[in-house]
């Protein structure tokens, strides 16, 4: 099989996989879920247990039922998720939210990890390119020189490396 036809084959295979996944995804798009459950996992219980409201397991907790009741009332009043969050912050303070918001300085909490990851990724790629650009050092040169220029020999050496794992020992 020539290179273009192989590429075509693999492209079609990937397309088929994506299509199957898309169909399967769309089949499950109607399952109902609890908004209360979702929201209660974005808020902290205020009893001092340092647990999410939806996970606070203290019997007789002075705050859990009260907060859940407020949450239910807000939802019944037709408030949006953001309005509910704002109402809780207004009443209990910013610590009631289980995660920083995306406003003001809080946004830094979300941006910093991805910024650091992106910078480190870029740095790593540049480092590898730079190292690669410097070329092989004496050991590499010696090793390359020692290897045969005969393609059959190279293939045999490659096979030995591959089969014995000498190319990839930990």
């Amino acid at each position, binding site marked *: 099989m020539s290179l273009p036809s192989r590429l075509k084959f693999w492209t079609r295979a990937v397309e088929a996989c994506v299509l199957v996944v898309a169909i399967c995804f769309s089949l499950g798009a109607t399952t109902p879920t609890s908004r209360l459950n979702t929201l209660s996992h974005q808020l902290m219980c205020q009893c001092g247990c340092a647990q999410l409201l939806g996970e606070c397991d203290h019997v007789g907790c002075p705050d859990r039922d009260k907060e859940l009741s407020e949450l239910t009332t807000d939802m019944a009043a037709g408030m949006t998720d953001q309005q509910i969050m704002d109402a809780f912050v207004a009443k209990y303070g910013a610590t009631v939210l*289980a995660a920083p918001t995306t406003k*003001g300085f809080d946004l830094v*909490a979300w941006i910093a990890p991805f910024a650091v990851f992106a910078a480190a990724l870029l740095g*790593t*790629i540049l480092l590898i390119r730079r190292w*690669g650009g410097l070329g*092989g050092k004496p*050991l590499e040169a010696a090793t390359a020189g020692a290897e045969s220029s005969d393609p059959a020999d190279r293939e045999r050496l490659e096979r030995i490396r591959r089969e014995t*794992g000498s190319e990839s020992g*930990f």
Partner: protein
Amino acid sequence: MENELVRREVTGFSRACDNHSGVLMATFGSFCLLIALVLAAYNLFAGAVALRLIATGRAARISPERLADTARRAGIAGFVAVTGAAFALIWSVFTNDFSITYILEHSNRALPIPYKFAALWSGQEGSLLLWAWLLGIYGFVLRLRHKTDVKLYAYAGTILSGIQVFFLAVLVFAAPPFSLLPGYVAGGPIPADGNGLNPLLQYPEMVIHPPMLYLGYVGFSVPFAFALGALMMRYPGEKWIRITRTWTMVTWLFLTCGIFLGMHWAYAVLGWGGYWGWDPVENASFMPWLTGTAFLHSVMMQERKGMMKSWNVWLIFSTFLLTMLGTLLTRAGLVSSVHAFAQSSIGTWFVVFMGIVLAVCIFTYILQRGHLKTEHHMESLVSRESSFLFNNLVLLTACFVILWGTLFPIISEYVQGTKVTVGAPFYNRVAVPIGLFLVFLTGVGPLLPWRATSFKAIKRNFVLPVIALWVTVIVCLAVGVRPWKDGSLDSGSFYAVVAFAVAAAVLTAIIAEFLRGAGVISRQTNRNLFAATWLLTRRNTRRYGGYIVHIGVVVVVIGLAGSAFNRSIESEMGLHSKMSIGPYTLECMGFTQDSNQNYNSDYAVLDVDQGGKKIFQVTPERRFYLASGQPQTMVAIHSIPEWDLYVVYEGTNPDTGQPIIKAFLNPLVGWIWFGLVVIVFGTFVALVPSLTPATAALRVPAAKAAPMTPVLKGGD
């Protein structure tokens, strides 16, 4: 009430008569600590002077080698002294010596014997003493093995003694474990009973988890000391890495076990149905694990290619500093945590010490950085070398994310005056994708050869894993695991599907690697595949042990992904009341009370039916500890590979007197604990020395020895 007072006074008085031995033991313990501090200080000072003399070649009245040996012996004697102090504290716990404040606050007479040991680390002073003692043990072993490389070990021993000086100084001056009760005089009355151990700690794993974690924390002091020592003395070559490899792996294993035991403890004791809450103290243990794991991978680059020398040095420096930060977070109450058991003002001591350590590291690095020049360079972006770099990149990014999330409340308070909460939703959105990428690299890395690779090789190695990945995705979607709910993406299910798919791909890749190697050996030696796999593993234990560890990690990830499908139900249950969860129906057969000297308990007896047939019984319990006056849940867990049925006795309705039961169905949790077993096994395999061609040849029939030669040369 009056009788109780009289009883306490009489008991107190009668105890006073035989309490002289208790005071004696407290004095003995305090002196042991003082002597240990003096010996550690001598070890540090004499060791530093001797090594300086050796380095400069200057003459002195005493031979520097002899001076260094006296320093080493002082270190050994210091271990004996710290052991004496630890013994004194344990003795005091067992003899109920409540004239010592620490014993009064963390023990009581009815405390079962195993938990008397746990009292050693249940409070700040005791856990610092445990740290110093474990450091003493590591130092003792290190100093006994000094003949491996006398000079390098002298450096490492001296650096360890510097760390020991810090901990002993804290114990002697800031957090003395043998302080007597305020106003207490020898022979005076003492309280009849102690306040008892924190109920959260009265669980079997708590007798193992903290020492394991501390063995991991403290253990990283050893590779740190070797790395810093090797840099100070400009140690030639990479031998120091081989010397410290066992130390690092054993330490890493202890930390891994400690973290997992902590997870299991949280799961079985806290009663909220989870095992990881991204609590600052949990994060504190996870961060050095991440950098330590990065170090274990990147040192291979240094060993094989002479690359990443500076990087490795800083990785181990960072790991050590993170263990200190972890202790600071746990002990100083810098951030609020569910289970920071001891909080105090010793934070300043730690901050100053960390500052000194950092300054020493930076100074040494700047002075000796010429020694850390990379010897070789990279040939391709797609190679084993670059996969190690990316592996390190992801591990360190994960570490940064966790550090950032842990410290952001403090930063936020400093910048905008209000504290924010950084809880599970933050980490789930930021750390989980990074973790999945890391798992992906776990599979990709071993498939790439050193130096460079070809498109053909990539295709050959990646076809099967990619097929496994897509088959898993399709199977997941077909059986109803869909990351799409109510027209929007359900991140939990989405990540779970991705995790299953990546896990399948990685498992396929690793198993294919085993089979490929075993197939070659099988063909060349006519062994069956199992025997060939065994030989393959023994031939390169480090490589294949590492693969087994990777399999363990993948199994753990599968278990973690199951949490996306957790379910729970809560109900008040009268006699013969029923509730259903998943395939199970729970029927209340009774609820009653029990008591012993240590606690009173309420518990329910629940029959669990499946398909109308009783299959087992669970008895969730809620205890009320008498000494501390605190309640504690004892969760009933029935675990099978598919899921855990997790039943909590939440309490009693005061109006009806009936128990409130909460049941969880947590899929795949057992896989997490099984994954740990695989990781431990893999680490042990990696620690075993590989068969050398010479020893292996002896075991192969002569006729088969010749064709085996290339095989035996492979690998390491």
